[in-house]
């Protein structure tokens, strides 16, 4: 995981992109990412679009119609001009005919507007629904991925998929897709209309296209390097800022401000250099293509003038042709970008699908559940009568658990070929307390993770009440365990909601009783809104100790027959620590408990001690036995308490 961290670009290099309508030109300049399997990804994406096939056809029809009406109109406007020209040359303007032509024109514009809006309206619905489905599947996927997956993937990476990649696909679906269609139709349509007026003039105008393309290609090639470098140095600058602000006190304490600033200036200068060059180069594109467009315009005028003089075309035709030439450039650049756009969309979509298709935890029992899944989801917030019954039944089952945990020749390694636990056997009898001790980094939580089946064993079995944990559904299994970890995770929401997390169907009274048992009831009641106090985003409106107590209340409420506790309570003041200890002691009473122990009294009071070092269980036994053995535990114990 550390390795992966290092390879990731500095934060900011791929920061969340803000949404904006109409893609910037800058995006087109970026070297495009490429999908590994373009075809496959597009195929998968089309599966998501399939349910909306009918709507997509309508969108397609609307887009084409709207574009076509737009394309025809310059020619009709040309007709109107001709009418006027005829008027001056001849016997006055035929206002009736002119009105007719202009009326038709206005109607066409109106239709174009109508279809344009209709297309956008429908597409907005389709694209957002597809995006919703993608998000939803990713969300559900998170709960089915084995924990191992998260060891190898940083949170940032996952979030980037859920935010940035989704946004890219969203943009592509909601605007780029139809733009692609309209650009293409426009291009073909204009071409036909131009040829209809004059083939030679069209040829002259088209001569410009290779020139434009060349300019675009050269500019893009030149600026791409600068853009890349700009992104890179932006990453460096932002990374440096983040790092140095984070270590502000250390820098000040070690008088390193000057060195830090020096380094920053170096990054900053390079960013500035690559920044202005890339900006300049990309800024070149517009004036240059405009010039080329003007060249075409003059050529059209020359040729058109000649044809008009010899009477092959009318002035209205010239006017229409000029309009066509003018509107030819934009779709060309758009079509030129399509490849890039499709590539980056495919790359983003591929990362999303990779996650969605990631291998899931095997759980035979889950397959029998789908029938229950629907109502459960809807009814959880407010317990319906049927729901309550079901929960009751589940609880009943949980209470019958005796809480015997047996490790039977267990071997395990986070990496398949590097086992850390070798052939470990041991039985915790109901009601016993088991202490897990060892130096920092000895892997004390590994055993916990194995019991709750967060990881699969390499070999051997773990039995709870005599039944292999693989024969329980994960839900059944995990409901037998309650847990208080050192990392006091709470979610944003009220205090009450957070405690109720232990058992979703608990009544308010039960929640409050649990809080009382955890010595936190008094504190909660002193808060502005009591149990309805919102824990904010950073959860910094309550102290670390109180958080710990809340997690204990949560575990108390879960009333699970087996408890897992982590005693480490750093940065908590002594009085709170005392309360936490009392609450934990109470929690352990009458249950099988596994304690990652730091307190001597817990260790000595434990029925059984598992001593860990370097991920392996090196010794086990009672305090006296282990001391008598004079091994690792004895050393640990003595170094701690004897000079």
């Amino acid at each position: 995981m550390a390795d992966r961290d290092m390879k990731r670009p500095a934060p900011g290099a791929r920061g969340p992109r803000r949404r904006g309508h109409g893609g910037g030109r800058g995006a087109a300049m970026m070297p495009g990412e490429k999908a590994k399997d373009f075809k496959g990804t597009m195929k998968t994406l089309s599966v998501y679009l399939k349910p909306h096939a009918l709507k997509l056809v309508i969108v397609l029809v609307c887009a084409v119609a709207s574009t076509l009406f737009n394309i025809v109109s310059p020619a009709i406007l040309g007709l109107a001009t001709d009418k006027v020209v005829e008027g001056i040359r001849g016997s006055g303007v035929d206002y009736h005919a002119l009105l007719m032509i202009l009326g038709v024109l206005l109607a066409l514009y109106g239709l174009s507007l109508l279809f344009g809006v209709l297309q956008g309206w429908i597409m907005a619905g389709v694209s957002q629904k597809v995006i919703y489905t993608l998000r939803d599947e990713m969300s559900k996927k998170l709960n089915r991925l084995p924990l191992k997956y998260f060891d190898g993937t940083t949170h940032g990476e996952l979030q980037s998929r859920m935010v940035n990649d989704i946004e890219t696909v969203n943009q592509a679906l909601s605007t780029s897709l139809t733009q692609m269609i309209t650009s293409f139709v426009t291009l073909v349509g204009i071409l036909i209309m131009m040829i209809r007026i004059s083939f030679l003039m069209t040829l002259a105008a088209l001569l410009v296209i290779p020139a434009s393309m060349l300019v675009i290609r050269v500019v893009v090639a030149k600026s791409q390097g600068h853009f890349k470098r700009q992104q890179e140095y932006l990453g460096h600058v932002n990374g440096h800022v983040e790092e140095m602000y984070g270590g502000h006190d250390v820098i000040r304490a070690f008088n390193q401000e000057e060195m830090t600033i020096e380094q920053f200036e170096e990054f900053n200068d390079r960013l500035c250099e690559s920044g202005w060059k890339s900006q300049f180069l990309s800024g070149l594109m517009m004036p240059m293509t405009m010039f080329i467009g003007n060249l075409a315009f003059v050529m059209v005028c020359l040729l058109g003038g000649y044809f008009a003089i010899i009477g092959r075309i009318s002035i209205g035709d010239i006017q229409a042709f000029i309009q066509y030439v003018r509107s030819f450039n934009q779709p060309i650049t758009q079509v030129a970008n399509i490849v890039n756009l499709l590539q980056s969309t495919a790359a983003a979509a591929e990362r999303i699908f990779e996650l969605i298709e990631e291998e899931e935890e095997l759980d035979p029992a889950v397959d029998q559940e789908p029938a229950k899944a629907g109502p459960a989801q809807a009814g959880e917030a407010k317990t319906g009568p049927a729901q309550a019954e079901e929960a009751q039944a589940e609880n009943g089952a949980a209470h019958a658990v005796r809480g015997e945990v047996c490790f039977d020749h267990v071997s395990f390694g986070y990496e398949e070929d590097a086992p850390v636990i070798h052939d470990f056997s041991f039985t915790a009898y109901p009601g016993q307390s088991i202490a897990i001790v060892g130096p920092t980094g000895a892997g004390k939580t590994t055993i916990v993770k194995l019991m709750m089946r967060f990881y699969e064993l390499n070999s051997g079995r773990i039995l709870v009440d005599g039944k292999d944990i693989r024969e329980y559904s994960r839900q059944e299994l995990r409901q037998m365990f309650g847990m208080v970890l050192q990392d006091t995770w709470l979610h944003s929401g009220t205090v009450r909601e957070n405690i109720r997390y232990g058992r979703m169907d608990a009544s308010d009274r039960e929640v409050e009783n649990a809080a009382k048992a955890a010595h936190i009831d008094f504190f909660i009641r002193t808060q502005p809104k009591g149990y309805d106090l919102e824990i904010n985003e950073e959860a910094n409106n309550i102290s670390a100790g109180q958080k710990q107590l809340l997690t204990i209340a949560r575990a108390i409420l879960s009333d699970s027959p087996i408890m897992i506790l982590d005693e480490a309570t750093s940065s908590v003041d002594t009085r709170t620590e005392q309360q936490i200890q009392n609450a934990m002691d109470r929690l352990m009473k009458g249950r099988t408990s596994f304690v990652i122990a730091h307190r001597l009294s817990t260790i000595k009071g434990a029925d059984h001690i598992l001593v860990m070092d370097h991920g392996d269980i090196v010794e086990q036994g009672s305090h006296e036995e282990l001391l008598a053995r004079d091994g690792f535990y004895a050393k640990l114990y003595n170094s701690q308490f004897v000079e």
Partner: protein
Amino acid sequence: MRYILSYYRNYIPFMFLIMAFLFGQAMCELALPGYMSDIINNGIVKGDLAYVKGMGSIMIAVSAAAMICAIGGVFFASWSAARIARNIRSALFRKVMAFSAAEMDRFQTASLITRSTNDIQMVQQTTIMFLRMAMFAPIMGIGAVYKALHTSVSLSWTVGVALGVIICIMGIAFFAVLPKFKVLQSKLDRLNLIMKERLAGILVIRAFTTERQEEHRFDEANLDLTGINIFINRAMSFLMPSLMFVMNAISVLIVWAGAHLIEADKLLIGDMLAYLQYAMHVIMSFLFVTAMFILLPRAIVSAQRISEVLGTELSIRDPDQPLQLPETEESSEQAGPANARGLVEFRHAGFAYPDAENNALTDIDFNAEPGQVTAIIGGTGSGKSTLIQLIPRFYDVTEGQVLVDGVDVRSVSQHDLREKIGLVPQKGTLFSGTIASNLRYGDEKADEADLVRAAEIAQAMEFIEKKEAGFEEPVAQGGTNVSGGQKQRLSIARALVKKPEIYIFDDSFSALDFTTDKALRAALKKAAGGSTIIIVAQRINTILDADQIIVLDEGRIVGKGNHRELMASCRVYQEIARSQLSDEELARYGAGQSAGASESFGERGRSDGRS
């Protein structure tokens, strides 16, 4: 805003230059329809091909001039915008580096990071936009209006109608849709928050089998977001087609009205076509300016957030004429113990955070002497960390004095003061680089032997040796590839490399196991024997053998003495001890072993602390 605008001042000449280029570009571009009109009026209608050719070459020349002007404008715009952004960025970074802890508290690190990254980028982008487009649009717009009026005054009402309709459309969009963008952002934030929480709490969620609740919570946010997204996208799907329609309809109007004028001989046919183009220029410029107004508020907010930082008065500054701290090994002339090296004195020091009602520290009075270990213990919020931050002047006392080697810390330069101090902060902050580069933070000139010595004392050698590249092992940003305990040991080693006269350990042993903690302290005492050592601790084991223990409670000293003395006299200390040590241990340290322990403590046994 004042502060940020000053960074634009130096580039005003360039802005005028850019403006000149843009003006040239606009004039050239606006001339083109005129030539076209002439070509039609005088060339095509009259059948004069030579005239068409002549005007055609002029048109090419003019459009080439337009291109050159545009390129010139782009050149100076990119050049200045990048430099302005660089200067602001640099100023902001330097400013933050000069901040004291008080200012860091005020702004919060996360917010300062956003200000230095996203906000600056926002400002930079807007600057480029402004220099390249926003300045161009009004020039172009005004020029086009002038040209249009020049071509035909009687047609001008058509442009007026178009602008009126566009203002209506934009007005509706502005009031109906724009507020929804804010809602959209908050919904998006909510979704991301839930996502973040789920990732952070994955163990807990699975342990409590509340996956369904989490999915439900996410789904609610997802539905919300989808709803608002559909609304905005649908509303926006009206915008572009409507604007297109207005522009098209206006050309129909111009042709209709133009036809009458042409027949009355008030207008030439070519002029009508030119007028069509001018009208489009006016409308486009107007749309550009409007778009700018939508973007501007966000940029202004960013600019204000940056200005706020730049305009902050530093609360801690070096004195105008800093005193020199007594040099190492030289006997000092100041009052106080002779040959003081690293003596830290608190004289009735008090401290209150800005805007705080109560003091965080009150009447702190003690000496930490060279060659001794002074420990500070107390509950959370008792002011331990605040107290030691007064020594390197991260904060300034609000009452009393803090002296180092007999000199008030406020009367020497911060640089000189901090040269004497080796601080090990609570969280082991490491920087990206290598293990060696991190250790050399303490002393750039330290050689390999120095590093090894420091690493050995800090008990870090054991794991450094196991690394493939040893001292050259890369450290990732934020030290993410190093464990918590390793980080702490490395940051202790860093302070040791500095060989300071005063060591300050701010709860620096908390991530270490007891064995390592003990070995480290023993080695430290041996190696840094002559220095003043100040240790803030949560664990009582860490400080049992300190020469002097200061017990803090609610910002006041409630006990001073060694362990044995405090066990006898200080109630708060007893409470702490009882909560952490078993009876047996208490007995061993309190009475049983006190005879042995007091040998090492004995010499410097201090008088009992005042409670």
